[in-house]
C-alpha cells in the first residue's frame, strides 16, 4: 500500500498537525518509504499467533475504588498557558 497526498492530508488532520502543501508533498515519499519498508512483515507467517499484549507476564492490579480529587488544583493549573477562575481556558468553542 502507498499513501497519496490526500491521504497524508487526512492523516495530518486526524493527528491535529497543521501542514502546508509543501510540507505534505515532502512527507508523501518519506512516509511511503517507511510504509514500504515495514510491509516486509507480510512475509512472516503469523497464522495462529496471538498478538502480544504484555511483554512481561503480570497480573493487572486493582486499586481501592475511592474518589480522590487530588486536592492540588493550583499545582495542576500552574503550567497552563491560560488558566482562569480555577479552570483551563481555551478559545471559544460555541458561537
Amino acid at each position, binding site marked *: 500500500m502507498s499513501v497519496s497526498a490526500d491521504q497524508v492530508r487526512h492523516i495530518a488532520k486526524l493527528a*491535529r498537525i497543521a501542514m502546508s502543501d509543501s510540507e505534505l508533498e515532502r512527507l508523501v515519499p518519506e512516509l511511503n518509504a*517507511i510504509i514500504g519498508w515495514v510491509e516486509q512483515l507480510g512475509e*512472516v507467517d503469523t497464522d495462529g499467533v496471538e498478538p502480544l499484549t504484555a511483554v512481561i507476564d503480570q497480573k493487572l492490579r486493582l486499586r481501592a475504588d475511592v474518589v480522590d480529587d487530588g486536592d492540588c488544583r493550583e499545582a495542576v493549573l500552574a503550567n497552563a498557558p*491560560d488558566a482562569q477562575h480555577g479552570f483551563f481556558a481555551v478559545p471559544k468553542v460555541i458561537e
Partner: protein
Amino acid sequence: MSDLTSKTIAELRDGFRAGDFTAREIAESYNDAVAGARLLNAFTVETPDDALAAAAAADEARGSGELGPLAGIPLGIKDLFATKGVDTTAGSRILGGFKPPYDSHVTANLRKAGAGMLGKLNMDEFAMGSSNETSAYGPVISPWRRQGSNVGLTPGGSSGGSAAAVSAWIAPGVTGTDTGGSIRQPAAFTGICGIKPTYGRCSRWGIVSFASSLDQAGPLARTVRDCAIMLEAMAGFDPRDSTSLDVLVPKWEASLSSNLKGKRVGIPKEYRIDGVPDEINALWDQGIDWLRDAGAEVVEISLPHTQYALPTYYIIAPAEASSNLARYDGVRYGLREDPEGGNLDAMYAATRAAGFGAEVKRRIMIGTYVLSAGYYDAYFTKAQKVRTLIKRDFARAFEQCDVILTPTAPSAAFGLAEKMSDPLAMYLNDVFAVPASLAGLPAMSVPGGLDSAGLPLGLHLIGPELDEQIVLNAGLAIEERAGFTARPEKWW
C-alpha cells in the same frame, strides 16, 4: 581536570565515606566541570545549587552513619524525567517552560538514596532519534573525535547528552531511557557502560511517555559496578505505574562476579548481517574469546525473526507515540499557538505544528496511519503478532544459553548531519538493540575497544527476564579483559 572527576561512583562513594574528601568538594568539582564543558551542549539546564544542597545534606549526615547508597554523588538527569520545579521538556519546544510539580519515581528514588542533581541532559526530542540531532536545543557534540580530524561526531541517541556527560567526565553517572536502544547505542558510541533493565523494573511514572510498552529507564556510567550501584537505587515497585514489577530489587553490586564457569553464552547467527564493518565483527569474536576465558561455554543460537524486529518496532513505537503525544494540545502545559480568529481545533493544529520537530511529526503521522480505520489489523495487529514471535525466539534461545553476546551498534559514531536526511538509514542504528526491547529483556553495552579511527565500539549482552545479574557479570568479565581506559582528548 580535578582529581575527583576522574573517579568512579564507587570510588567517590567509598572515599567520601572514609573522609578522604567531602561531598561538597565532589559537587564543586563536577559543577565546575559542567560549566566548563558547555561547548558539548550536553545539558539543557544546569542545577549547581541542587548538587550543593544534596552535598551539604550528605556531609552533615556522614557522622551519623545513616547514609543513603548514593550520598554525596551528583548525577545528571535526562530531560525526559520529571524533576520538581526544574524545566522538563523532553527536548521539545512543545514542553517549553514546563516545570513539573512532582519528581518522577526514578528521580525521587535517586534523591532518597542521597544523590544530587547536576542538571538536565539534552536528548533527541521525545527520545525519538539515534543521534541527538532532533533536540529542540540543537545536537549534543560527542567529546570523541576521529584521529586527526575535528569533524563533530554524534554521541548517539536518544540519551546523547547523558552519554556525552559521562564520557567527557563531567558527570560520574547519569540516567537514560531506552525504548529501542537509546541507552545502549550512545553508551557504545562514547566508550561507556549503559544498562536497560527488564521492562517494569524501573517505574515509568513521571517519565515523559514515548512508547509505553517499550520505555525503560536505566543508568549510564563508566563502569559495570557503577551501573549496578545506580540501577539498584533507580529500580523498585511503584503502584502508580500499572506495568511496574512487584518484585524485590536484587543486590546487584554485592553479587557481581566475573567468573562465568558453568554459564553458556549464546551467539545468534542472525546477527551476522551484511554491511557491518569487519572491525565490529572482529570485536565480537574477541568478546567471545573473553567470555570463554572467563569460564563460559559458547554456543551458537538462532533468533529466526531478528530481521523483522526493526520494522515491527517502527510500527509499534510510532503507534504508541501517536497516542501518547495526543496530550500536547496547548491547553494544560507547554506551548500554545493561537491563530487569530481560530477555533479550538485550529489552536490544537497550530500548537502541534509549531511545537513538534520533523522526526516527531513523521512518527506521529506513521503511528496515526497504522492505527487508523482499515489499516489497524494490516499493520498494528500484524506487528504485535510478530512481536510475539520475537519474544518466543528469545525464550527458546534461553533454553540453550544463559546470556547472549552481540555487537551493540552496526557502526562507530558517525558525523553530525551525516544521516539526518535519510530516516531509514538512521533507524538501522538500532538493528542489534531493538529485538531485546521488543522482548522486554535486560540488556547492556560495555566498551570493547577502539576502531581504526580511534572511536569506541561496544559489546552488547542480553539476559533472560529479571536476570540483570548475568548481564552485569558477563559485562564485568568483558570489562576486566578489555582493559578499556581510552578517553577523549579535551578540545572543549
